[in-house]
């Protein structure tokens, strides 16, 4: 423990006293954080430069343009041609170019296409641009749609009303038709039932009867008169005390006599009249019979026509039924339209984007990603640099000679990195809180745990890099590369969903993604332990794997450091004399390939020590190794290049 504390203290002192380290490792990230913080600490949307080309400034075009100009974040500039507008995008002076069509108006059989030109290479920004501008265009388009839809609905309502009225009329008409049909049927029936047979008036009987009547009347008169006479006689016969009454009665009898006489006369007159009437009637009956004939004919025609009329009426009724049915269907369909609000038709589904969190600052959203990003780079670079600084330092050898276990150094490096990271993070968080009003949630426990786990993980990754590579440059490049890979396989630069499926799968296991998403869940959404326990499990797993790799690679690097590729099998002296060629430099050549390698490294001067006019050591060696054919060819070579060519050719075979 004492050793660990001492080593950590030493590391911190060295870091503090190294200006480069302080600048790069400590202040660098702080500066980046401040810059990024100020850059992202902007609650409002970005200013967009929108260019447009409108061949004709129709009312509709102007409406769209006014809608765009109403947004103060848009700088709307007109261009004459599409090329000039797109040129501005290429130069970076405009974000989007809108081309309005000629004759931009809403009419039938006309599609109005608004073309957007955008710079697709701004993949991290372009969607925001398109969305922002499109939303404005869509809004205006919706407004027009609303108006038109409203008109349409009104027309439908009106049609519905008219339909209802028409339906009533149809019903009435139908009823009238029915009545008419009924009436016609009745008429037809009545007409059919009319007895239009001719009739004859048999006046003989009537005359006879009238004569009988006359006779009867005469008889009656006579009887009546007889009665009266009798009465009078009676009266005369009867002595009445009451003479008045008798008088009266006598008067009455006189009256009755008069009446009877009158009546009889009248009756006779009547009879006479009746006879003449009968005669007239007979004439009329004849006339009537004639008329009846006519009527009969007419009735037949009428009946026929009534039948035709009834048929037509039936047809009309059928049509009316059909019309009624259609109108009813139409009405039913109109009634079935549940959505009758123009707003609901134009915008059947409205979306409201509500923040899950109450924080509305861009910086708050991106803060978890930034924090983890800083942790990634600081941890990896710091730990890898600590190790490579130690490996390349003068004191590395002395550390090796001390009876201190490698694990002690590993733990010390780890703790040093953790300590520095934590200090930096505290500073960053304080700065962010006071100056940028960005901070972490009240879920401090999980936040601290996640940050600590992240620091530990990326420190270990940095340590792997530090132990694996041998030079400062390689370590720096590897650290930056690894950090960049983590960064690009995340949502921070480009959406992961834009990548191929295989890459997406890998990206989901990216420790940076896991850590930053977990921190986001904790800080913005106040996630509970069940929601994040799997993420922590992953990170812990990575840490365990990392620790194992650190131990293995550290051991391997140490072995490599101290062995410097030793020759596996050292040769015996006899072997050296008999089988191998020992060069003047002390190098042993065992095979032709090694000879070729040495020849390539050798200077011509050195070569001339082996090959002279009288000897060729290489040839001799080859002969000793029973490579006679090759030896012959090598023997013919006078220069190093020739010998190399021969050996290369032989090697290819």
């Amino acid at each position: 423990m004492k050793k660990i504390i001492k080593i950590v203290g030493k590391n911190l002192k060295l870091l503090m006293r190294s200006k480069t380290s302080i600048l790069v490792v400590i202040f660098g990230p702080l500066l980046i954080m401040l810059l990024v913080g100020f850059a992202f600490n902007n609650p409002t949307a970005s200013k967009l430069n929108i260019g447009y080309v409108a061949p004709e400034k129709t009312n509709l075009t102007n409406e769209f343009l006014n809608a765009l100009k109403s947004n103060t974040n848009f700088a709307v500039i007109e261009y004459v041609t599409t090329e000039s507008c797109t040129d501005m995008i290429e130069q970076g002076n405009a974000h989007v170019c809108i081309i309005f069509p000629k004759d931009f108006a809403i009419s039938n059989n006309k599609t109005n296409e608004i073309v957007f030109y955008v710079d697709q290479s701004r993949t991290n920004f372009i969607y925001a641009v398109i969305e922002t501008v499109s939303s404005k265009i869509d809004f205006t388009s919706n407004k027009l749609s609303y108006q038109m839809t409203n008109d349409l609905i009104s027309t439908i309502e009106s049609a519905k009303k008219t339909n209802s009225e028409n339906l009533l009329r149809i019903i009435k008409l139908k009823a009238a038709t029915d009545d008419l049909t009924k009436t016609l049927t009745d008429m037809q029936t009545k007409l059919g039932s009319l007895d239009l047979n001719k009739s004859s008036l048999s006046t003989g009987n009537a005359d006879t009867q009238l004569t009988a009547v006359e006779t009867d009347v005469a008889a009656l008169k006579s009887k009546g008169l007889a009665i009266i006479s009798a009465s009078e006689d009676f009266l005369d016969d009867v002595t009445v005390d009451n003479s008045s009454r008798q008088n009266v009665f006598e008067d009455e009898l006189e009256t009755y006599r008069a009446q009877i006489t009158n009546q009889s006369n009248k009756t006779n007159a009547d009879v006479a009249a009746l006879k003449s009437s009968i005669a007239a009637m007979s004439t009329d009956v004849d006339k009537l019979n004639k008329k009846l004939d006519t009527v009969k004919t007419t009735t037949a025609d009428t009946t026929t026509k009534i039948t035709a009329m009834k048929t037509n009426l039936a047809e009309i009724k059928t049509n009316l039924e059909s019309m009624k049915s259609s109108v009813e269907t139409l009405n039913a369909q109109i009634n079935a339209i549940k959505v009758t609000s123009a707003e609901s038709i134009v915008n059947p589904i409205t979306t409201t984007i509500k923040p899950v969190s109450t924080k509305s600052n861009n910086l708050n959203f991106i803060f978890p990603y930034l924090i983890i990003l800083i942790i990634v780079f600081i941890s990896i670079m710091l730990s890898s640099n600590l190790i490579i600084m130690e490996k390349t330092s003068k004191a590395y050898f002395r550390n090796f000679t001390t009876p201190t276990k490698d694990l002690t150094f590993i733990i010390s490096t780890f703790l040093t990195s953790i300590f520095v990271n934590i200090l930096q993070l505290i500073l960053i968080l304080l700065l962010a809180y006071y100056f940028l009003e960005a901070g972490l949630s009240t879920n401090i426990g999980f936040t601290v745990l996640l940050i600590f786990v992240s620091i530990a993980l990326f420190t270990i990754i940095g340590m792997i890099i530090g132990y694996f590579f041998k030079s400062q440059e390689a370590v720096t490049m590897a650290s930056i590369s690894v950090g960049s890979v983590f960064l690009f396989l995340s949502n921070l630069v480009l959406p992961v969903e834009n990548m191929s499926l295989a890459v997406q799968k890998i990206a989901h296991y990216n420790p940076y993604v896991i850590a930053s998403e977990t921190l986001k869940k904790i800080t913005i959404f106040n996630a509970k332990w069940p929601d994040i326990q799997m993420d922590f499990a992953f990170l812990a797993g990575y840490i365990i794997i990392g620790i194992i790799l650190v131990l293995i690679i550290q051991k391997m690097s140490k072995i490599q450091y101290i062995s410097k590729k030793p020759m596996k099998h050292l040769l015996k002296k006899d072997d050296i004399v008999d089988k191998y060629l020992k060069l003047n430099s002390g190098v042993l050549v065992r095979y032709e390939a090694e000879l070729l390698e040495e020849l390539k490294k050798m200077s011509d001067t050195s070569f001339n020590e082996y090959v002279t006019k009288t000897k060729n050591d290489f040839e001799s060696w080859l002969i000793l190794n029973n490579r006679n054919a090759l030896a012959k060819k090598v023997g013919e070579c006078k220069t190093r290049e020739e010998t190399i060519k021969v050996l290369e050719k032989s090697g290819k075979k």
Partner: protein
Amino acid sequence: MATPVFKVKEVSKAYDRRIVLDDINLEINAGEIFGIIGASGSGKTTLLNILVGFLKSNTGEVLFRREHLLEHKDSQIFRSVHSHHEELKKVIGMASQTSSFYDNLSVKENLLYFGTLYGLHRDTLKSNMITLINLMDLQGAENRLAKNLSGGMQRRLDIACALIHDPKILILDEPTADLDPLLRNHIWRLVRKINKRGTTIVLASHHLTELENLCSRITILKEGKILATGTPNEIKERFSKHEEIHLETFPGNYNLIADIEDKDIMKEIAQIEDRGTKLVIHTSKPELVLQELMKKLDKHKETIIDLKVTKPTLDEIFILITESAKDKEEEAEDDKELMEEKTKLVEKMRKGAKKKSEDEKEEK
């Protein structure tokens, strides 16, 4: 009887196909200053790195005697450097060719750091640090960053870091490289001081003259092989029977002095060097030659300014060994024999091939 602390047995080391060490056998005894000398690229650093376990040899083994048994001379318990590396690290300290400390830590911080890595108790560490700062003449520079120290101070700091845990064995690789003579001298004095405390020192250098007076024993490496091992005098005796007469006279007409007519005496003279300011005569019989020289000096009225008879320096012996005519001759002879053998074989093969092709032509 000397107690070995290191035993190197048949150690060979090759990088790719380049043999750097070839069948090294030696023993390093406790309490001695053992020098490994050789030209650049002879394998000194490789040997030292193998000794401390920083490199692994391809063949052979390096054994060390375990620390707690160093005091027990009768206990000969040796263990392999590689299998007991952690134990070895506790007993050795090494200062490599390039200084090995942290430039951005101060003297004190470096010593405390490395001392902690050796697991020293705080009090022991502080005590050792103070002792070493005094020993290495680093007083006043305790709080100075290592990179701001002078070259000599850096080297002393490096050695101090190697000694912070009071090791039984100190390995020094070219401790005086790139230092001026004064500083070198200072370092060698320090090495003696350290050795006097009981530390066994193994050092590699190509400053042979300095090692001659410092080392108890030396071993000479050439092209990865040990040419000789022994005390400096033993080596001198083995490789050079001659002594050197260094004569400085006035007016210094050395050509006249060197012109010795006596053939018998000339036979005993291996070499005469006129170095301008003095005459150096290599001879196996210095007394005889001196007598003749006195006569010459008298004859030519030369006044002796300086006269000494010395054995050749280790430098000279080293040069002699590494570039000896005898070696060259032997080597050339060996080569010649081998070449003759090969050439005969080649000729034989050529004749055979020629005959074969002639036979084939005849058949056709």
